[in-house]
């Protein structure tokens, strides 16, 4: 439904999360949700100008090497070099252009360059694990990094996180804000990872798994994975703002 807004034309809202795709905030297998998931029902609101607008971060905020996590230090990080690429699409399959992607990850040994991480795996002085990119005019992005290792956590007895890369996107509006995790195909840890499995639908979980992409590998240099990210779509055809 579109709403009339004085002086701002029509506001076309985004599709609300129908609680089918996203994980429920209370997911008992993931222990930390027990004290952090709101218990009262969320209050539904109609989208207004406040929700269909959002932060605009363009190419001017990005440094030349921000997309290459293997070239941020004096030496090269250890691990399996990979190219991670894909497109950011809206809910109608159209490219989301000029939008900021931020990512962070563990090193190849499964340790984060973070003071809170006390996993006794080696740090890598040549790897911070943070990258940024802005999509091009067709919604494409490309990172160069190393494949992160799996790591233990204390959620349950002998718990290990499936290898993953955290990805944060703004999209076009406050309503489209998304933080997700990208996984690797065939990971043997999926079945016991309650964060991955908090997403209830099997096909929905599959949309968090990247695809090995032989075509984009660079011979003698790096493997490649493809990962398209789809943000929420709109209730109706929006005004063309580009």
């Amino acid at each position, binding site marked *: 439904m579109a709403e*009339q807004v004085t002086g701002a034309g029509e506001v076309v809202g985004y599709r609300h999360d129908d609680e089918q795709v996203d994980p429920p905030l209370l997911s008992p297998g993931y222990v930390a949700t027990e004290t952090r998931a709101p218990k009262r029902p969320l209050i539904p609101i109609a989208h207004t100008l*406040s929700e269909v607008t959002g932060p605009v971060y363009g190419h001017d905020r990005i440094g030349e090497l921000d997309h290459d996590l293997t070239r941020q230090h004096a030496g090269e990080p250890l691990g399996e070099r990979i190219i991670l690429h894909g497109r950011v699409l809206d809910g109608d399959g159209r490219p989301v252009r000029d939008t900021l992607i931020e990512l962070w990850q563990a090193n190849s040994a499964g340790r984060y360059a973070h003071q809170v991480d006390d996993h006794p795996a080696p740090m890598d002085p040549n790897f911070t694990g943070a990258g940024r990119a802005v999509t091009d005019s067709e919604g494409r992005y490309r990172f160069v990094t190393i494949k992160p290792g799996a790591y233990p956590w204390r959620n349950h007895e002998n718990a290990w996180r499936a290898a993953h890369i955290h990805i944060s996107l703004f999209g*076009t509006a406050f309503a489209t804000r998304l933080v997700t995790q990208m996984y690797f195909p065939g990971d043997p840890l999926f079945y016991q990872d309650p964060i991955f499995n908090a997403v209830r639908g099997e096909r929905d979980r599959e949309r*968090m798994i990247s695809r090995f992409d032989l075509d984009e590998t660079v011979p003698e240099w790096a493997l490649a994975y493809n990962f398209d990210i*789809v943000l929420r779509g709109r209730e109706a055809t929006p005004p063309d703002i580009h």
Partner: protein
Amino acid sequence: MPEMPTPSQTVGPFFHIGLPDISPELVSPDDPDAIRIVGTVFDGEGEPVVDAMIELWQANRAGRYAHPEDTREELPLEDGFDGFGRSGTDSEGGFEFTTVKPGVVPGPGGVPQAPHIDVSIFARGVLKRIATRIYFPDEADANAADPVLTSIEDPEERATLVAVEDDGALRFDIRLQGDRQTAFLAV
């Protein structure tokens, strides 16, 4: 043909690596209209959440969003004000932003909305962005007519969205659970 969205996942405990505090100061503290918004995030046991991240999104003091879909060109944009702020919580669960009070923005049917700031909350143990709004204590009349505030029937729950004066700042504590849980919005 609609595409199914990519599901949300938690930011986990290590987001500081990749999500720096972009701008807890949306304006300079020297700005004559600068206000400080402070708060603490609490979990269901009343413990401070030391690994949360808060983001703000707001219109400028004239009520204009720095975004191409806010086409009200009669309202000025401000150089250097992009309306976005981000801060992690500290070792006591606290956060602090410096900003200006936004102007009035139209809502459904052209009904004016009371001045407000959109808020996103991320944390370890939080599987998708939690959204809420900050309203202002010196806007009692506007708040009483605001479409979002008036849609909340319980006055105590409604009051959780209105910041309180606190020693020259505005305090907006966020309680994720419990009897005094903050009202959260399905955006």
